[in-house]
């Protein structure tokens, strides 16, 4: 004898099984909570080496740099790769030192856009990223360290500090 379940039971089972299947798929993907970025405090006596380490931490976290940019990748990239940026920075724009170029790229990213890429990087001293001037110096030190000679200290000055227009 063939057992025939009521339609309502079949439908309920179908809904539960379908939902369970999608829930299961949801458990198969990597599980990570996205926490608000940690606040980084920079003391006055911080050295260049320490700034590089802080800058790297900021690039991975609050600065969101590595959300878009890559390091050491080539091919059809969506955003410029950062490897070797320390050596390129001083030659990008005539008349701009590596520090001025890096500062301009971070405070006014659309002022110069690398050929083949679209503008659209957000200024990182403004919300929602909102790095402080000192934190941006740390990021610049880290960028210099990739292929260049890091010279940035907390005493380094540039025309964009405090949201200046670069002039």
């Amino acid at each position: 004898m063939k057992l025939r379940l009521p339609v309502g039971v079949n439908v309920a089972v179908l809904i539960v099984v379908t939902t369970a299947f999608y829930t299961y798929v949801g458990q198969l993907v990597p599980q990570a909570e996205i926490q608000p970025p940690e606040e980084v405090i920079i003391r006055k006596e911080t050295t260049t080496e320490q700034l590089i380490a802080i800058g790297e931490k900021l690039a991975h976290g609050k600065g969101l740099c590595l959300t878009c940019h890559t390091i050491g990748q080539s091919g059809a990239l969506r955003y410029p790769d950062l490897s070797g940026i320390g050596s390129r920075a001083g030659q990008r724009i005539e008349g701009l030192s590596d520090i001025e170029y890096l500062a301009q790229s971070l405070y006014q990213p659309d002022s110069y856009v690398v050929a083949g890429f679209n503008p659209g990087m957000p200024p990182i001293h403004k919300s929602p990223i909102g790095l402080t001037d000192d934190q941006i110096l740390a990021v610049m030190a880290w960028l210099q360290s990739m292929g260049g000679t890091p010279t940035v200290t907390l005493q380094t000055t540039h025309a964009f500090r405090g949201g200046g227009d670069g002039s």
Partner: protein
Amino acid sequence: MKRIYIVLGLIAALAALAVTVGTVRYLVSGEYRPPIRSDAAEPAPREKAIEDIAAAKALADAGKPYVDAEYRRIGGIPSRLLVWIPAQLHLLFAAFVLAVPLFVLIIEAIGYFSGDMRYDRLAYDFAKLMSVSFSLTATFGAFMTFMLVILYPKFMNMMFEVFNLTFLPYVLLFFAEAAFLYTYYYGWGKFHPLVHLGLGLGLNLVGTAIMFIANAWVSFMTSPAGVSESGALISVWDAVTNFTWIPINVHRLIANVAFGGSVAAAYAAWQYLGAKSDQERAHYDWAGYIGNIIAVAAFLPLPFAGYWLASEYYGYNQALGIMMMGGGLRWLFIIQAVLIGMIFLGANFYLWVGMGRVAGSEKRGHPAIKYLLAVIAICFAVWATPRSIISTASEVRAMGGSSHPVLGYLGVMSAKNTAVNILILATFISFVLYLRSGKTPTVPWAKLGDRLQALILAGAAGYVLFLGVRGYFVEASVRINYSVYMVGAVLTAMALSFLINLLVLQRAMLKSAPRWGTMPAYSQYVLIFIAVSFTWLMGLMGFVRSALRQHWHIYGIMRDNSPDAFTPTLGYATQVVSFIVLLFFVLIGFVFWLASLSGKAHAADEHAVELPVAEGVAETP
């Protein structure tokens, strides 16, 4: 035997009472009692301490300052859940209650202008689902609003500050929607048809306007405009017409129709499975077919609307777009790909089974089906391929990175865009084949039309493949435009092909008419499966829209400082989505049940014209 139980029960009750009284007496006797002192002694220390505490409390209460709360909690329940669950249920019912009037009006209009009263009955059948759904939408809307005001007062203050001008129009429109909806539903068959259609039009316009206002609030939270950096209001109009408002309006409008069509098809399937007569079965088979066609027709352009919305997120802030597609939420889109793939498979399968309604074609099916199935399966696999995969350290070393050396190339947008466009074309071809089953064109240029159709569709598919491959070799600034060209080619091809198909099938000869009511039961379960998948997809997309803001209530303007500021894992999110989906189906089941109670003896049935059942012959409705 029963008396013994009663006596034993009474004894047990008396024993329990005795134990309770004894315990209370023991506890009271153990309470601290002041020692007996002489009458001249000061008040006992215990009484004095109680008085002192009361006085101190009264003093503290009197001087307690008023502080604006930033957050509140209700017990130990996470505030996120208390907002998420009613908000998503509100959205699901709102989507349904906005979509159903849209296609009810279209179906009713077809019935009126063609004079075919079967459409009128079908429209009324779907309209029965509206009124209870409307009440549930309002209930969950109020629930969500209370939760937001109670749990997130500071955030709501800012929203009230920015959008206070929009609330009164919203409430007035809500009243207007209630008036239109109930007059439209209860006035069925009681007004002149044109007046009734006018009411339906009013209902749709008002409903859409309500959605647009609510979308302004939601889109503002992700892409705020019209306010200063600290959140001070500068322009309400700019806040309303913020960066993502229009794309969200378009995306939600289309998604609502797709979702509403699928739930209406599930209602028809449920009625079909429980139908008592062939006539009833034929009617609900047809109703399910129409509901599914509405869902699929709206679903085809939905990925394009979604792409537009995503590109606007990128345009507003690159970090938002990257967070969504390449950052912390990227794996969510693999889950989404599984869902959309299942919906496409289900929709195609239903169309293929539906070809069996035409006598003679049920045994062999169309020869193209196996190829279509292969194309859909391949596209599904490509779409669901992640760029990077979960791997151990040794596996990463062996692969030379987190991406698979071969499959990793399928995880990028060039491949995914190609897959989704081909998937859409394949589904469209299934639909065209369904429309053609059992018909022989009679127009003299039929063969030319067929060739033209094939050429257009093949050309579009080839162009999409060409751009997909070329996308790997060009710069980002060039590649980003390719998706627009792909969408343009596919939409144009579908529009042209549909038009040619329509003209070719004019006065077509019917080999045999569709026999409504002959679909196998499993096909109806497929319709229900599609509705569940759609609902789940809506829930998942609701999560990503909100999760995109991460630790911001209003992106870049107001930070979330609550304990719920983190974005939960996808596993947790999918569990909550599933809970919401199950709750939705319990409630929509209630709506279906009420609808089935009300409609059986309605006046609209008097107009019903019988559909051809298993042995009958008639034109395709």
